[in-house]
């Protein structure tokens, strides 16, 4: 595979922000890939990684806001960011649709993230030149 031709990446983040370095390493990787002329096909949040898509994460003002930084990146480069629905529901991350479906008091998904099934991961896997995983360290 010639690394000078444009390629596409699917990034899978399984480590949560502020418990692991995964979302931040993944963002640096994503920015470097785009800077080299490659594309990010999609970002898929799985397991504890879904916490990155929470609208309620509130770090101290002098620390990087990884959910916000990621959301900005996704919007700027029109990259879909998808949180796995099974991982999300178990951990208390829901959008308006799931809030209604499960008759919950609130929703807390940060735009532009969406919630969908593992099929999104399978599709990214098939379509991208490379799928990279960013795990926690435990």
């Amino acid at each position, binding site marked *: *595979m*010639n*690394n000078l031709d444009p*390629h596409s*990446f699917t990034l899978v983040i399984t480590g949560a922000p502020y418990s692991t*370095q*995964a979302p931040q*390493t993944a963002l*640096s*990787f994503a*920015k*470097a*890939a785009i*800077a*080299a002329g*490659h594309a990010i096909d999609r970002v898929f949040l799985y397991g504890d990684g879904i916490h990155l898509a929470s609208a309620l994460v509130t770090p101290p003002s002098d620390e990087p806001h990884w959910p916000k930084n990621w959301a900005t990146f996704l919007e700027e480069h029109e990259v879909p960011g998808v949180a796995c629905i099974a991982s999300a529901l178990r951990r208390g991350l829901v959008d308006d649709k799931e809030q209604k479906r499960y008759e919950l008091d609130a929703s807390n998904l940060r735009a532009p993230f969406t919630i969908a099934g593992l099929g999104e991961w399978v599709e990214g896997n098939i379509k991208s*030149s*490379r799928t*990279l*995983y*960013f*795990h926690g*360290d*435990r």
Partner: protein
Amino acid sequence: MNELHTLHILNKTPDHPRFGECLGMLGPDDAIVLIENGVLGLAAAEGFHSARVYALRDDVAARGLSGSTQATSLVDYSEWVGLTLQAERVISW
């Protein structure tokens, strides 16, 4: 440059079981990129067999390990992106 079969991305400390699993599945034409806590493998002077070893510069510097990287090539994010495309497959431990 030689053929690169598998690029192993390792972010665990040498005490983590997955560090050993990674070494156990390392082939002669493979390469490792140490990232995050994986760079502590440099301090613990782990043997990486004949594999080429790279370490992410920012993670090495953050942990005060820039002095213990003789046999290691330091890479930035952009070089790491390039390595993932050279390899036949990539595995994140």
